């Protein structure tokens, strides 16, 4: 098939076997690539009830279908597994350069089965694939691991995915680090690698570039998109300041989640913003992922003071908001240090910030005491405490061992009322959004199969009323008035449209800044054309979105097989019981009746039961998942 690499690589770490299968063309047609094919493989390979940290779980790495070509912002790689944080379906996507390199070596996907008895890494050089000893790498940080492998192989032209000590120690929210500075961070893929004793995968490909079915049309469309992106205002802003440019505006609107969502505004938050990071000279350089047309990635350095020597990729908005504002910290150098440690230890910064602020609130309320913390005071705004807790979590030292389990598990262990401020859905810590005055976001983060994360269906109009976002709302709902984020009406329609678009975008390996953020410039029409011109498999905009919906149903089906129901699709307690306490949205909080109506609308729109949130066999068959419908019926999970 044009566009796709010819093989799927399998590595069984229990048996030490390596094999490759020709990539099934039917799979490419049915699931588009990346996230879609990964989801199907996960369903087929992981039995119901499998221990996420046991031999039955698999780790699947899938390249985007456009990856390896010069399609703008097309270098994203999807990592899929059963999550140790949620015990449910998980996919996590990262940038960098690994996915394209994998295709250059001839492989569209890697599936890692089983668990090794001793630390290993996998070295792929075109047709040569080896499982190599990694005992000497165990314990190294992410950048040390990458460098050590380069030295050992005697080459600098490789790409790696790897884990740091947090993954080795199976911290439930350890991430898979890609090309050192990028991360498929969410939901614990790093812990799955750690359970497999898989320290890294290194790849070098030297095969011919990806073959394009209709090169002239493909190239012309790419040129058109690049020109559009080049002049788009938010793209320029994103390149200049980075994602943490969001901090001042969200703070101004009293929508910057502060102190574990107790507050919505943080005095002095500007100091942790992208604007300040640039103005104060911490921004060392900018860069982009493979074939990127934006360049939002950055590298920051602290040259003096107690955190001198700090240097790392990032930080992103989610990071400064989670380990900064979320913990009440405005000391930018402490935030940069904590960001560096998360990147080097291989931790998801959103979840890391989430558990630390939960612990700080427990400390404030006397649920956790100095006895529990070993004498370390966990006070709001204490950057030093945040940095220390990052270390303790990564190495499961002291109270870090408790926090490494995530807020859901930790609150069950600590007890009392601590579950009320455990901010998660399905066991995954909340992205840094104030959803008590953003109804579409509230719904989207609740129904996300992997838990409370914004990258499942981001209703961009609610946070940035651009002309394109308003036009899209009009297209979906018939009137742009539904962009108003306080309205509960039409949320299901808006969320479902974005679900379809995000799923398709992830299959193709395209960054959502291009497909959603920058005025929906790489919209479903353009995505379908790019896919068709590249692969020779002609699909329409409608086909593309239908396949996105099929993938959403497949991911849902995985969770249903594991026992998930409607009760798993709710935002945390705080959002229904404690209102925003300042600013223009003061007094706003979610209402159970209103949220239930939105959830009913969402299930009805999908054709799922409003009683229990489960899809029917009829709906699964209708979206093209006939065999999965039969399997779920046999187990009695659906009717």
């Amino acid at each position, binding site marked *: 098939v044009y566009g796709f690499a010819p093989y799927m690589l399998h590595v069984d770490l229990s048996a030490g076997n390596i094999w490759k299968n020709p990539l099934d063309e039917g799979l490419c047609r049915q699931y588009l690539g990346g996230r879609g094919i990964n989801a199907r493989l996960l369903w087929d390979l992981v039995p119901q009830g499998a221990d996420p940290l046991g031999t039955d779980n698999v780790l699947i790495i899938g390249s985007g279908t456009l990856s390896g070509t010069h399609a703008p912002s097309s270098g994203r790689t999807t990592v899929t597994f059963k999550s140790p944080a949620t015990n449910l379906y998980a996919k996590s996507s990262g940038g960098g350069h690994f996915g394209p390199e994998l295709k250059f070596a001839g492989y569209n996907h890697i599936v890692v089965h089983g668990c090794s008895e001793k630390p290993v890494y996998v070295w792929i050089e075109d047709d040569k694939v080896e499982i190599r000893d990694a005992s000497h790498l165990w314990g190294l940080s992410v950048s040390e691991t990458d460098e050590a492998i380069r030295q050992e192989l005697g080459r600098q032209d490789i790409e790696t995915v790897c884990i740091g000590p947090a993954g080795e120690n199976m911290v439930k929210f350890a991430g898979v680090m890609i090309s050192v500075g990028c991360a498929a961070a969410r939901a614990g893929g790093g812990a799955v690698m750690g359970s497999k004793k898989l320290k890294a995968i290194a790849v070098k490909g030297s095969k011919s570039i990806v073959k394009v079915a209709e090169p002239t049309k493909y190239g012309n469309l790419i040129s058109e998109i690049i020109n559009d992106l080049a002049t788009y205002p938010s793209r320029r802003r994103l390149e200049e300041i980075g994602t943490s440019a969001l901090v001042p505006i969200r703070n101004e609107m009293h929508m910057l989640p502060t102190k574990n969502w107790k507050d919505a505004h943080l005095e002095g938050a500007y100091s942790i913003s992208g604007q300040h990071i640039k103005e104060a000279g911490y921004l060392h350089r900018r860069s982009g992922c493979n074939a990127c047309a934006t360049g939002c990635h950055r590298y920051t350095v602290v040259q003096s003071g107690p955190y001198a020597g700090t240097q790392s990729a990032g930080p992103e908005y989610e990071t400064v908001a989670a380990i900064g504002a979320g913990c009440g910290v405005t000391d930018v150098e402490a935030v940069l240090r904590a960001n560096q440690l998360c990147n080097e230890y291989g931790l998801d910064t959103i979840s890391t910030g989430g558990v630390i602020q939960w612990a700080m609130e427990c400390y404030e309320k006397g649920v956790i005491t100095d006895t529990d913390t070993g004498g370390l005071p966990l006070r709001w705004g204490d950057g030093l405490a945040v940095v220390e807790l990052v270390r303790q979590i990564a190495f499961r030292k002291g109270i870090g061992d408790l926090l490494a389990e995530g807020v859901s598990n930790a609150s069950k262990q600590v007890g009392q009322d601590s579950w009320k401020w455990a901010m998660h859905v399905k066991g995954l810590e909340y992205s840094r959004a104030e959803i008590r005055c953003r109804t579409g976001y509230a719904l989207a983060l609740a129904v996300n199969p992997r838990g409370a994360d*914004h990258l499942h269906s981001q209703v961009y109009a609610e946070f*940035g009323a651009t002309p394109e976002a308003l036009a899209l709302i009009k297209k979906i709902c018939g009137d742009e008035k539904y962009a108003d984020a306080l309205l509960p009406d039409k949320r299901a329609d808006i969320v479902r449209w974005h679900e379809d678009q995000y799923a398709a975008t992830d299959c193709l390996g395209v960054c959502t800044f291009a497909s959603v953020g920058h005025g929906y410039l790489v919209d479903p029409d353009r995505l379908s054309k790019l896919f068709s011109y590249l692969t020779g498999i002609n699909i329409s905009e409608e086909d593309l979105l239908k396949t996105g919906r099929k993938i959403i149903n497949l991911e849902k089906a995985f969770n249903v097989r594991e026992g998930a129901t409607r009760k798993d699709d709710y935002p945390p307690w705080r959002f229904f019981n404690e209102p925003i306490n300042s600013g223009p949205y003061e007094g706003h909080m979610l209402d159970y009746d209103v949220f239930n109506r939105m959830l009913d609308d969402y299930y009805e729109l999908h054709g799922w039961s409003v009683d229990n949130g489960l899809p029917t066999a009829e709906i699964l068959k209708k979206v093209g998942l006939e065999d999965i419908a039969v399997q779920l019926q046999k187990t009695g999970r659906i009717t």
Partner: protein
Amino acid sequence: VRGGFALQITVDVSRMTKTDADKRFVLELPDGSTIEDLKSEVTNKFPHIDVGYVLILVNDELVYTNRVLVDDNVVKIFPPVMGG
């Protein structure tokens, strides 16, 4: 003293420009003026501020569609931002 106009609107462009004088100022507009009218007026007075593609907050609330302003509104203008 109002210059014959019904509305006094405070405009904050501190995130748009680095020159101190322009960061926060009062615009006088006729009754019934909208956000689009305000943007035109800002462009007339301060051509170096590009308000063609911005986020608008009225009294700290993000505004989704063009709307009529009322006296004493505080309008903040932000460059487009995104993230995650």
